[in-house]
């Protein structure tokens, strides 16, 4: 379970997050939706302890990320790109993470198999396509077989088969009682995958509920999204 409570983030005079609160429950896939610059990535970075909050808190099973005893077995995260240095091979990247978390080397080969990178494991990350880089990032997220997955734009750069694979993966994890929080701007894709939806716009939560609740009378998630995030959204419909 992920809890964001009254989170505020300011950079200089700019307010990026304006006291947002929401939860991502276990056993459900929660979609985190918003236009570029709305505060999605900032929220996820604070949740993962990468950025500090001006005030408020972001908790994983009741504790801040920095205080997790076994972070990689608790949370698997995918942020921008692959998160790997381009000069290292895919396997070397996963190997140092596994070492750092005390995971067996065999787990590296397992996750390479899961994400379909076994054949590219010995190649340098610099030679990977965007989609392969994302798969490597996902492999890193899955290394510790975590209870929680936090994925920022996971389908970005993936081919249709990869997109379907991600959808199946997150649905299976939620079905097994785990928590999945994923951000995306691909409305159609999200509507196929998520149980709950949180919509953020200009640093404020503008909708929070089940997929059906958020769509409401708008017909589609896309219509609901534009109605919620643009001043003339209703007119555009």
């Amino acid at each position, binding site marked *: 379970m992920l809890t964001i409570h009254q989170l505020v983030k300011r950079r200089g005079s700019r307010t990026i997050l304006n006291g947002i609160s929401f939860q991502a429950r276990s056993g459900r896939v929660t979609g985190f939706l918003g236009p570029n610059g709305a505060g999605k990535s900032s929220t996820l970075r604070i949740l993962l*302890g990468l950025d500090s909050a001006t005030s408020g808190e972001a908790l994983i099973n009741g504790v801040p990320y920095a205080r997790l005893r076994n972070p990689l077995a608790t949370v698997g995260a995918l942020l921008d790109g692959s998160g790997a*240095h381009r000069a290292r091979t895919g396997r070397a990247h996963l*190997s140092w993470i596994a070492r*750092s978390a005390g995971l067996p080397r065999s787990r590296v080969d397992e996750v390479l198999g899961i994400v379909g990178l076994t054949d590219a494991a010995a190649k340098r990350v610099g030679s990977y396509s965007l989609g392969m880089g994302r798969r490597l990032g996902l492999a890193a997220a899955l290394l510790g077989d975590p209870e929680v997955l936090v994925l920022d734009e996971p389908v970005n750069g993936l081919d249709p088969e990869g997109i379907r694979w991600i959808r199946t993966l997150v649905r299976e994890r939620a079905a097994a009682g785990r928590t999945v929080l994923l951000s995306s701007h691909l409305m159609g894709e999200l509507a196929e995958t998520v149980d709950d939806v949180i919509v953020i716009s200009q640093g404020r939560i503008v909708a929070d509920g089940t997929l059906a609740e958020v769509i409401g009378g708008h017909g589609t998630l896309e219509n609901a999204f534009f109605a919620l995030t643009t001043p003339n959204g209703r007119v555009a419909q």
Partner: protein
Amino acid sequence: MRAITAELSKLLSLLSVWVALAIGLIVPTAIVAINSVSTRKAIALGDHTAVGIDMGYQELAFGVIGAIIIGVIAVSSEYFTESGESGGGRQITTSLIARPSRLRFLLAKATAVAMVSAVLASASAVATMAEIRIFLGEHAPELGSADVPRLAGIVCYWVLSALLAFGITVLTRHGIVPLAILIVNTSVVTVTYLLTRITSLAYYFPDMAGIRMFIRNLDDSTVEMAPLVGGLVMTAWVAALLTIAAIVFCRRDA
């Protein structure tokens, strides 16, 4: 311990680190090879003063470039940004997600840098001293118990220089500036040395103080400094810099 092995694994899986290791071995041994040609000629002409007290040590002072590069890469590789087409990610996010305690992460990284630099310094010192023996034979300066602290001084100098480069790069988050400044200062124009012409305080710069640990013949020096004092002065610089780097690193957004 896990964090340290992870950092060692990171370092040793980068080609650029292996290039730095090669530089640390090749630079002093190559300078010795070049210098021994003229030294042998001088000896043949009967000039026995050609073999100086600092032979080998002077060359090793240049080899420190290898350790400096390792210190810089250890940090700059974390902040290297992927191209926009690859998603624009940086490894530091992966590192801090795996190791959320920033201070421990930085300590593990610094320890890994110190360990690799110490091994490199030892290997380079052995290779350089052995080479002098091979090139100059009986004319090579004798290695005795007095050389033990000097050789230890070389290892300390390399480790401290690597940590100095490491600390500066934590602050800049980019490798080019620290690499350029430190390499130029070590090899092309030693700015800190030139400053000693202006003020004797410049002898307390970390590099100028640090070389006292193993260089005995600073003939134009106006400041007396024992090897141990030189080492302590350099250690104080490095400790201060690492403290500032750690405070900044723990406070700023990744």
